């Protein structure tokens, strides 16, 4: 019995101390990790969408939560006016998990500026073709009120041949962004205003 209690004590103590050490490291690095994540994962996409250095845009960030999903939203302003938004959303139904997309929207022209893929785990060479410009540019300059569907479902988007799942996931992500813009634009704008003040 003594033996077992020593065994239990040592193992659980080591676990506890390890966890404590990890928590401390985690707390002290958390902010930096998030920053790095924004910079390297979203930065390039934001640069593409807004044609501005990533560091200028990254700080303009709000988080909008709806239906248990948190959507990170970046914005561009001209004085007090909001000129553009970049909304990140998960596209469900990919072949290997979610495809995270980011859609840029010109709020004045109510048009889509561009679509970027932030993160995916699709099969290289097949599903990964969603990253290709030829696929993504199909969204450019579409109005935000339009509905996005694959051509096979009667829409206007050409799917990548052999990668219907991946294409569908991207479409799903863009539809989420569209519905947020259509239904909650006011709330988002007020959040941004609050952030600006």
């Amino acid at each position: 019995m003594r033996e077992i209690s020593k065994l239990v004590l040592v193992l659980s103590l080591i676990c506890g101390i390890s966890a404590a050490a990890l928590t401390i490291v985690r707390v002290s690095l958390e902010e930096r990790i998030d920053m790095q994540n924004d910079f390297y994962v979203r930065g390039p996409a934001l640069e593409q969408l807004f044609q501005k250095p990533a560091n200028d845009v990254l700080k303009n960030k709000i988080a909008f939560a709806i239906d248990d999903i948190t959507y990170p939203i970046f914005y561009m302003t001209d004085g007090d006016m909001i000129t553009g938004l970049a909304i990140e959303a998960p596209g469900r139904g990919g072949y290997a998990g979610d495809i995270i997309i980011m859609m840029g929207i010109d709020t004045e022209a109510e048009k889509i500026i561009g679509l970027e893929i932030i993160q995916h785990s699709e099969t290289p060479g097949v599903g990964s073709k969603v990253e290709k410009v030829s696929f993504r540019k199909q969204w450019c300059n579409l109005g935000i009120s339009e509905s996005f569907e694959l051509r096979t479902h009667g829409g206007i988007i050409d799917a990548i041949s052999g990668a219907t799942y991946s294409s569908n996931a991207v479409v799903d992500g863009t539809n989420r962004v569209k519905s947020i813009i259509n239904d909650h634009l006011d709330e988002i704008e007020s959040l941004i205003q609050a952030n600006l003040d």
Partner: protein
Amino acid sequence: MDLLLLAIGAIFVNNILLAQYLGNCPFCGVSKKLSTSVGMGLAVIFVATLASIFTWFAYHYILKPYNMEFIRTLAFILIIAALVQFVEIFLKKQSKTLFNALGIYLPLITTNCAVMGITLLNIKYEFNFIEVIVFSAASAAGFTIAIILFAGLRERLIIAPVPKAMQGTAIALVTAGIMSMAFLGFTGMVK
């Protein structure tokens, strides 16, 4: 149908040994004899599936809700280590036959990156429970198929007139390379 594709993808296209490079230490060590490699392969299927189920629950019901994803590595390895050791102790007492067939390979599995890798991939791909079972069993089956094929090759390889310096692990690695090339042929079979 989706699950079948998932399984085929995990076994052939993304073979855990030859395409993902996981579990290579036992791949080289245990593949010297066909019989040992069969035992090892079956043990990996068993433990990988079991470990995936446990870690999936731990992740989705404890770690994720409390926002503790950062300790998942620690939690997973602890769960795998304890699980494997428990199964070993249990089998040793309860069934000598089963222990001799599978149990003696269990200690190898604690430090087998294939098992740990499968549990991590489960999380990465955000599978649901059924998918986790199918994926982990299929990945481990991929490991088993690869190691059995490889052991067969190696048994014949001893007879081959290999240059002295290349004998042993060196020629085994080259052979594994050629095998992995063959597996490249499956790419694109499942999208």
